[in-house]
């Protein structure tokens, strides 16, 4: 879907992005992560030509991006940024309808699309359609920003630290919603962040960048298990990696079928992460948990030994 082939970007003598190659498959959520100044935002902005790359090739669906008119290229990609960039003089509804209006959709279709998106992102039509951006909270504004990016139903969504300025609670909520949306809409998303927890939580494909180069890329669990070098390891949390990995694995992966023993008193959902299970054990001083399904019916059990991955349970 998106292919970067030996792409380099110079700003004068400085090299911002240094010979990177990257493929993002259709429907994949690719997260670029790294410290500030590592070139991740520059890379993102080269994809919609807000920044022109100096060398190499960037392809969208096999076609070079320079073959498109800049404006038409951007109109087929959603773009969401940290500070939202909502137009302060336009209402929420008008902001969301921006790209469809640029594409000259008929008014009725734009109206219907705006209503659909507001529902999708949990923005009450009555309450928010006629509000101005300064009347929204940070989380609401970011929802509007994402709705605007999705408005013309683009295949590709570029997101530059969209949740960076939000409080942790709102951020986690929106991350979860983004994952869920992604599952439903099957967009190809390139997401930039410096927050490793966010990166691990969201990514199908994780790309670690440092000083303009790609240090390592792959599935989050692969990177956690086998970091390429000390930098990637420390960025991934060093000694804390165990907990980060535990946060990615569901309880259902390590639980055992219900045994003949009495059910443990403490319960945990099978979709919860191992990290949550461990936390519950620490909190309740429990060695065993009963795993329950969505209807709160016991489906298995999880011992501390199983949780930490000791192979046999003897």
């Amino acid at each position, binding site marked *: 879907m998106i292919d970067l082939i030996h792409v380099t970007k110079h700003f004068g003598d400085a090299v911002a992005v240094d010979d990177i190659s990257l493929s993002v498959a259709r429907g994949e959520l690719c997260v670029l992560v790294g410290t500030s100044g590592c070139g991740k935002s520059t890379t993102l902005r080269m994809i*919609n030509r*807000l920044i022109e790359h100096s060398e190499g090739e960037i392809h969208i669906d096999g076609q070079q991006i320079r073959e498109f008119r*800049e*404006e*038409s*290229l*951007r*109109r087929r990609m959603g*773009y969401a*940024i*940290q*500070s*939202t*960039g*909502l*137009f*302060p*003089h336009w*209402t929420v509804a008008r902001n969301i309808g*921006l*790209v469809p209006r*640029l594409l000259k959709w008929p008014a009725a279709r734009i109206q219907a699309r705006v209503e659909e998106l507001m529902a999708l992102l949990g923005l009450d039509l009555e309450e928010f359609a006629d509000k*101005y951006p300064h009347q929204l909270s940070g989380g609401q504004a970011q929802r509007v*920003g994402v709705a*605007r990016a999705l408005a013309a139903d683009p295949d590709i969504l*570029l997101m530059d630290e969209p949740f960076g300025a939000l409080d942790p609670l709102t951020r986690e909520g929106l991350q979860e919603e983004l994952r869920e949306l992604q599952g439903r809409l099957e967009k190809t998303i390139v997401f930039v962040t410096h927050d490793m927890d966010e990166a691990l939580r969201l990514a199908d494909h994780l790309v670690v960048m440092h000083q303009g180069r790609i240090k390592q890329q792959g599935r989050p669990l692969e990177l956690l298990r086998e970091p390429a070098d000390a930098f990637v390891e420390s960025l991934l949390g060093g000694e804390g990696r165990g907990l980060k990995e535990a946060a990615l694995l569901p309880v259902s992966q390590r639980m055992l079928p219900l045994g003949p023993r009495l059910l443990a008193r403490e319960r945990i959902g099978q979709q919860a992460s191992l990290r949550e299970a461990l936390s519950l054990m620490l909190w309740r001083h429990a060695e065993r948990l009963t795993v329950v399904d969505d209807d709160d019916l016991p489906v298995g059990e999880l011992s501390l030994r199983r949780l930490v991955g000791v192979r046999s349970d003897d």
Partner: protein
Amino acid sequence: MTECRRLVVPLCWLSLLLAATLGMGQLEGLFRVIEPDSRQVIYDRAGFLTLLGRHLSVVGVAAVLAILIGVGAAIAVTRERGRDFLPLVSQLASMGQTFPPVAVLALAVPVLGFGTLPIIVALLLYGLLPIVRNTLAGILGIEASVREAARGMGMSSGQILRQVELPLAAPVILAGIRTSVTINIATAAIGATVGASNLGDPIISGIVNGNTAYVIQGALLIGLLAISVDSLFSRLPSPGGR
């Protein structure tokens, strides 16, 4: 209803201005008290309405030109291609303001001759700064993220200018135009010294002939005109619905 109410104050000033223009002759008694020794106490070389009309048209022409040039120049130097000229233009505009209009008149008369043209040039130069400065401030003051999002969404530079930059900068630009026009209504009076006939005539003629009544009549009308126009500007609806 609220639309009407916004206009009450400017309409009051306007009617006061009209009343004073048309009814100056009725105040003869009053001016007689101020200037008991003069034979003539009401300026009569031209009707006040005519003078008012000429005054307005001089200021109007100068304002239209200043807006076209000022806003145009400010837009040009905030485009990517014109960025290099940004310091130059803002400096030129501030020089225009420091240059006294009287000096402009003195320099312009030999070139343009007597009459209305030199005063239009002087007012144009004098009125440029507030417009250029405010247009620049308005456009440059727009949050970078808004422009970035506009570009990222695929708006062309023309669309960004018309739909984003100008509407967002409009209140600041309008404030600049308001300052410029209000100042120039007062400044236009000096045009009378180079033969441009306007509300400055009674003042100059009053000074020359030692007739305070004339001076007061001219000053009163100019003052009322400036207040009326200023108050009209303050009632302009601000775009953006804030």
